[in-house]
């Protein structure tokens, strides 16, 4: 390669463009504007590896490396400066860094500009001036780019800190000479006197504006100074704290963030202090009435107070920040108002258990004179085909092509239906296949849900408590646990049955006289089929079980066993042992 190649990257709005303009004063260095070189090299490497003609062996690998070097040379053939600094966020990636290290001469060196993350986000908000801050923060590509850059940088910096020189925006503004000296030492450049009172940013700005097809994307003044104060706390409001992420490049954290009331509310609720959590909910209502997370949480407490309609209305406000685990479906049709007749697309959302719960509303919507098409995860389609009220079922991916007049969000279907507590129907709605029964009672066990979510919801209990609670019962036990890693905790006296599909699970559940389960999708299926089901719940349960007591209006066949103290799971299992010993009729064969 004819030039020495280094790299420049940065979190958006952290000064990388400014730094480019400064470094370009140096006759020894050329800093590119945002470059596509990384993508071109990645494209070449991927093509090389995936193409059968270009067999990927040692010889071909040497050719690939040489081709990549040639590509870099061609890219910068018009530049007569000995040191090239290619600017792109794409360079921050472990695989890319490893591959490029083989291509360039010498060590991979990258300068990365960083800044207090909320200030970067606030700059993006100031630039975009969104009408809806919540939607912008949740969905806008620029915010997603910022998040992914931060996450990638944290990951690669952790493993290869020596490859990076981190330049903080504030330091660059306050003490540019020190930062430029650091850069020179890092890149082993000869010394150069930069003029911080005469910075020409016109070239890089023009190129970036052409690239991003927008004006005034950045503003570089000739004299180095902080351009404007950003009051990120005011601009970002309730989004401020989530962006206060660790400044991992510092040995000691600089900012100590006080927990937000929403965090305190969650902490109180997890430990069962619902009075304090409700006090905070009321406080947040006054102080941050439009904070969608606070509104969503308040909905949970209204459900706890049996105010079903109000609770669901408030929870629906959380949709904009993705509280149900799905982004807003890309549908141009209006949301159903509960009265209009036509074809209604019932969009089932959240996890599989959520969807099994929500499909019940097809019947209620159909009773209003509508034809209901259900959109759900592909694996559940067969379960829902014969649910009352369902006209047809499509999987989510096919949803945009389905003709309909209105759509309903499954989690919020109660809102247009206008339901209150007395309108909720706990009867079975998923059909139960006929199963062969043996002479012994059969109990199905499910001790853990999706391992990705268990800890988050504080519902993971020590599995041995469940096995210990039931081991003395004269019954046959089957495992309803599908995940391979979790199955390892299953004793040999608990039988395994096929659970490869949801149809298998339906058959397995149907064969049980009783299902004992953590709050999982299997418990929803069991309840939806009307099978007696005992559900073990954490102190802070899923919203369907917010209302106190051991029964729920959503599933008549459910009995709830609640954790009584955070961190302590023995109490609900002692009750299960007791119930199994004193109420054996509950698990009598009923088929």
């Amino acid at each position, binding site marked *: 390669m004819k030039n020495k190649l280094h790299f420049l990257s940065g979190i958006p709005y952290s000064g990388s463009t400014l730094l480019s303009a400064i470094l370009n004063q140096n006759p020894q260095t050329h800093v590119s504007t945002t470059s596509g070189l990384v993508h071109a090299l990645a494209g070449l490497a991927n093509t090389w590896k995936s193409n059968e003609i270009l067999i990927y062996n040692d010889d071909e690998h040497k050719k690939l490396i040489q081709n990549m070097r040639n590509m870099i040379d061609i890219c910068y053939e018009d530049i007569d400066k000995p040191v090239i600094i290619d600017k792109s966020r794409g360079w921050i990636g472990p695989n890319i860094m490893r591959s490029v290290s083989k291509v360039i001469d010498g060590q991979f060196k990258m300068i990365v500009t960083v800044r207090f993350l909320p200030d970067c986000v606030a700059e993006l908000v100031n630039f975009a001036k969104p009408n809806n801050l919540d939607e912008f923060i949740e969905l806008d590509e620029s915010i997603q780019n910022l998040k992914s850059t931060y996450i990638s940088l944290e990951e690669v910096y952790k493993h290869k800190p020596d490859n990076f020189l981190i330049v903080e925006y504030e330091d660059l503004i306050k003490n540019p000479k020190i930062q430029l000296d650091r850069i020179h030492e890092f890149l082993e450049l000869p010394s150069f006197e930069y003029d911080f009172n005469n910075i020409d940013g016109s070239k890089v700005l023009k190129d970036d504006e052409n690239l991003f097809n927008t004006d005034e994307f950045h503003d570089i003044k000739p004299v180095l100074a902080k351009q404007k104060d950003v009051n990120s706390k005011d601009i970002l409001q309730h989004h401020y704290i989530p962006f206060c992420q660790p400044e991992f490049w510092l040995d000691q954290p600089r900012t100590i963030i006080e927990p937000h009331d929403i965090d305190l509310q969650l902490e109180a609720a997890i430990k069962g202090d619902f009075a304090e959590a409700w006090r905070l909910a009321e406080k947040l209502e006054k102080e941050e009435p439009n904070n969608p997370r606070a509104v969503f949480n308040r909905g949970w407490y209204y459900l706890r107070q049996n105010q079903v309609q109000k609770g669901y209305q408030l929870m629906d406000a959380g949709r904009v920040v993705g509280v149900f685990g799905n982004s807003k479906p890309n549908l141009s049709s209006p949301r159903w108002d509960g009265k209009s007749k036509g074809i209604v697309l019932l969009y089932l959302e959240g996890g599989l258990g959520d969807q099994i719960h929500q499909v019940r509303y097809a019947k209620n919507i159909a009773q209003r004179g509508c034809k209901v098409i259900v959109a759900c995860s592909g694996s559940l389609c067969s379960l829902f085909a014969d649910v009352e009220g369902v006209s047809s079922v499509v999987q989510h991916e096919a949803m945009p092509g389905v003709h309909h007049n209105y759509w309903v969000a499954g989690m919020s279907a109660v809102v247009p239906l206008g339901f209150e507590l007395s309108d909720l129907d706990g009867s079975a709605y998923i059909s139960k296949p006929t199963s062969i029964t043996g002479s012994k009672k059969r109990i199905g066990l499910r001790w853990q849900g999706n391992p990705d979510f268990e800890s988050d919801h504080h519902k993971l209990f020590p599995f041995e408590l469940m096995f210990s609670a039931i081991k003395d019962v004269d019954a046959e036990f089957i495992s309803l646990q599908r995940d391979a890693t979790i199955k390892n905790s299953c*004793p040999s006296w608990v039988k395994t049955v096929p659970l490869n599909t949801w149809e298998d699970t339906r058959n397995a559940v149907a064969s049980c006289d009783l299902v004992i389960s953590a709050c999982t999708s299997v418990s929803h299926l069991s309840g939806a089929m009307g099978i007696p089901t005992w559900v073990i719940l954490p102190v802070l349960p899923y919203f369907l079980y917010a209302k106190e007591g051991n029964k729920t209006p959503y599933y008549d066949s459910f009995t709830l066993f609640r954790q009584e103290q955070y961190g302590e799971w023995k109490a609900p299992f002692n009750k299960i042992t007791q119930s199994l010993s004193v109420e054996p009729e509950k698990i009598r064969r009923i088929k």
Partner: protein
Amino acid sequence: MSLYVRIEDGEVKNCQGTTDDRPGWKSAVEVRPTIIPHRQAHSNHIFDLTKDPVEIIYLIENIEVDVRKAGLKSKSEFLFKQIVEIQNLLDRSQYNAEAIETARQQMNTKIASIDACTTHDQLDSLALDNQLDNPVLV
């Protein structure tokens, strides 16, 4: 075990336990320099062709604290799983939830103390390396 290398144009072309009819075979021995247990490991090797027999010299790489921590935590988790597996094989009348609970608490304590360490000295003071390499399953 005997080791042989085949040298062609001053480069090692083969390294194996037996020779064949091709020319250039020489005896070789492995040289593993002393390492500091739990802090260093042998990595790649180089050939010293000036020695007879040829020396296959292993290089030494330092084990980063985080890597050692991850290994210790993984072994702690594996030990817990082994105890669960023992219980799983028992008849239901012998199933001992307390044994699993105790093992879980021990695992959690170990992991918390490993997490708290930031240096090899601190990890040494836990004295977990040998204990986890040679667990006693009760």
